[in-house]
């Protein structure tokens, strides 16, 4: 594996490691907390304000992230991480996002039924009859359990149920 070579640096190389990325992300998070909360008053020791704890914790997190960065030599190279589960993760995220976006529009039964059928038959390529049976059965049973037995209000959606 070829290490990164900064331009103009001969004989100096840095291997991008897993903890480099993690530390960088946490440093960015800490800076974001400072920027987003810049208008929160820190207060005084006798009267601490709403900005005190976020500021202190973000500062601690930045210090720890720098420590992680300095200790990152022992972590594995980033290029060795396996990402073969990423396509599956993306599909699940997209499907769940679609379900969340349509939950109160289409209503519980239609949204959940489509989610189950889409994943089981569309993505996992299970037999269509079994996929339909499970999708309809689970949706109906859960709807009855929550609506009738537990009296939980369910979003009706455009179809009225």
């Amino acid at each position: 594996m070829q290490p990164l070579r900064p331009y103009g640096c001969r004989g100096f190389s840095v291997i991008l490691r897993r903890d480099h990325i993690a530390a960088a992300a946490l440093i960015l998070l800490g800076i974001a907390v400072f920027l987003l909360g810049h208008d929160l008053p820190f207060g005084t020791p006798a009267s601490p304000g709403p900005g005190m704890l976020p500021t202190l914790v973000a500062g601690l997190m930045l210090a720890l992230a720098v420590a992680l960065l300095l200790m990152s030599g022992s972590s594995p190279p980033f290029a060795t991480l396996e990402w073969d589960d990423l396509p599956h993760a993306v599909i699940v995220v997209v499907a769940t996002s679609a379900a969340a976006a349509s939950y109160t529009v289409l209503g519980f039964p239609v949204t959940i039924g489509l989610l189950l059928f889409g994943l089981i038959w569309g993505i996992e390529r299970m037999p269509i009859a079994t996929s339909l049976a499970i999708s309809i059965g689970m949706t109906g049973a859960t709807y009855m359990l929550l609506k009738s037995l537990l009296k939980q209000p369910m979003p009706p959606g455009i179809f009225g149920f």
Partner: protein
Amino acid sequence: MGTTIDSLMLGFSVAFQPDVLLYAFLGCLVGTLVGVLPGVGPLAGISILLPVTFGLDATKAIIMLAGIYYGSQYGGSTTSILMRIPGEASSVMTCLDGYAMARKGRAGAALAIAAVGSFVAGTFGILMLTLLAPPLASFALRFGPPEYTALLVLGLVFLAYMSSTSLVRTLLMACVGLLLGCVGIDVMSGQFRYAFDLKELADGVGIVPVAVGLFGLGEILSTPSRKVQGEVMQPKFSELMPTRDEWRQSAMPIARGSVLGFLVGIVPGSAHIISSFMSYAIERKISKTPEEFGTGAIAGVAGPEAANNAASTGAFVPMLSLGLPTGPITAVLMAALMIHGVSPGPQLVTEHPKVFWGFIASMYVGNLMLLLLNLPLVGLFVSVLRIRYAYLYPIIIMFCIIGVYEVNHSLIDVWIMLIMGVVGYFLRKFNFDPAPLVLGLVIAPIFELSLRQSLVMSGGDYLIFAQRPFSAILFAISGLLLAMSV
């Protein structure tokens, strides 16, 4: 002691009446159901059934509602073990080794140990409640904001000390959790913080969406169906139960968890949730095989489950003895008592002995009912694992969405769950343990309030933490643990 026994006999005479037994059973059954369903927690179950109790007398009402509370602790472990979906923060630690045991074909053993551990811890807690309620409640009253701050700092440092990952990584996750807990309205000033003008975030980020996202959805994102070997598990009945070795390995964790959980539970406030975290950390640290934790160590299930149940019993001590609610659930239970004309507090024992002792006696009965209810269902629950993963994970996603939405009927919670699922996926990739993040989120509101109140009390003098003996002791222990970790 003789008076206590006589009073307990009075309580049992109330608890064993057929109609009282029926309401205890109903409460336990509903509690188990709400515990099994992620998102529909005991608070929802108690609130839904509260109007049903209007026609009952105070004894039956409080017995049924309390049954929902401790019944849900039993049920919450089921989805944690079978699907890695924690119903509440107190079930989070069971997800780690409980689910790993299920993947190894030991789901039945995990469920059985969780049920028995809960029974033992619950019985221990009730016994302690019977004997020690008044003096323990007086001790708990001495907990002021400085002691709370010190206790919560100790909880975080303890977790970092006991963690198998590095101190830096654990504390980083705890910091992320604390920052998440700062989202919403600041309780002291009323100012919105990090809410991006979303009114749904006024109450902050919920524990359930975060926990379900990190553990439930995060696990699914990391596990495509081709990675799951599709062997159908059809265990014999004898294989559903723990082996003699597993019973032996669980005994001391259950004992330790029971004591730890009860002591933490009697402290007013939601700090009792940290009992399961602390129990897990202790068991991993003292185990001869700590490398097994996270891969299916029975002690990782037994200890936290026992601590969880003992803490929920301990939470009744301040409620019954002093009329102090320890959290929203005990607050609703107190409201139920007041609706029925019974004022909880020091006078409850003398003015309404049948209610007080009937309630305690019914907890013994209810605890036994839950064991008898849950153990035979182990086989039924384990049969869920026979479902092919390609069918199972979409169903789990369905429960995640429904459960999270039903907490506050807010789509924002569903989006938070999804975001935390993605976060959980990347935390796994980068070798971070998500449990400290959840702990940080849980304790953030109490921690911040206690810290700021302490400083207001002292006029800004941080020495208040050293001047109060119990606070000083707790901070000294924290410092020692930190020094030993470095």
